[in-house]
């Protein structure tokens, strides 16, 4: 028998918990709406990118060994109105530095990378499905 915890349901309020990625980077412009603070797990990442109608952020996924590698970074485009959730923070290495946290940064290949596990519309982005979200 499992230990009982009272069943609970919480409404996820993205509107009051928007954070930016530290002011935007050269790849995504300077459209961050937040102050760069780390937000909780319920967060919409709302950044105006080159395409003003598209929310952009970068997701960084692990290689087969579970290591996060800058060279594997993918830029993901999300249409306005879609829900983005940050699941956990990770540490990745890029540009000779180690990055941990939600903030984005400019990687060695000119794209921004994102250290963390994220989900879009309730589906965690992984190497297997990242192509669905990649910028066209």
């Amino acid at each position: 028998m499992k230990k009982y915890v009272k069943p609970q349901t919480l409404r996820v309020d993205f509107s009051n918990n928007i954070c930016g990625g530290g002011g935007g980077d050269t790849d995504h412009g300077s459209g961050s709406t937040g102050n760069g603070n780390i937000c909780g797990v319920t967060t919409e990442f709302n950044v105006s990118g080159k395409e003003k109608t598209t929310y952009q952020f970068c997701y960084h996924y692990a290689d087969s060994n579970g290591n996060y590698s800058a060279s594997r970074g993918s830029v993901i485009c999300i249409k306005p109105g879609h829900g983005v959730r940050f699941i956990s923070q990770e540490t990745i290495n890029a540009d000779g530095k180690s990055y941990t946290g939600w903030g984005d940064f400019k990687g060695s290949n000119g794209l921004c990378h994102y250290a963390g596990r994220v989900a879009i519309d309730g589906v965690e982005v992984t190497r297997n499905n990242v192509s669905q979200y990649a910028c066209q």
Partner: protein
Amino acid sequence: MRINKDLVLRQIGNEYIIINPNGDSVNISNVYSLNETAAYLYNKLYALESFTIEECTKFLLCEYDIDEDTVLTDLKDLLNQWKELNLIIED
């Protein structure tokens, strides 16, 4: 009562959220997070055409170490909330 099957429950890491996957975009004003107990019950009920509070009670009593009175009290709160949120529909 029955589950509103326009919505789906998805597990993300250790979290469970309910979203409406229909259409080109998700209405982010209607996303709900469930704890493990609520998600367990939701999944059980999703498989049923309809359900009663007695059936909900049985599901929880079979899975968790808890007394019936506590479960009934908690279920009343939960099911009322789910009705308000349109997660379940009362026929």
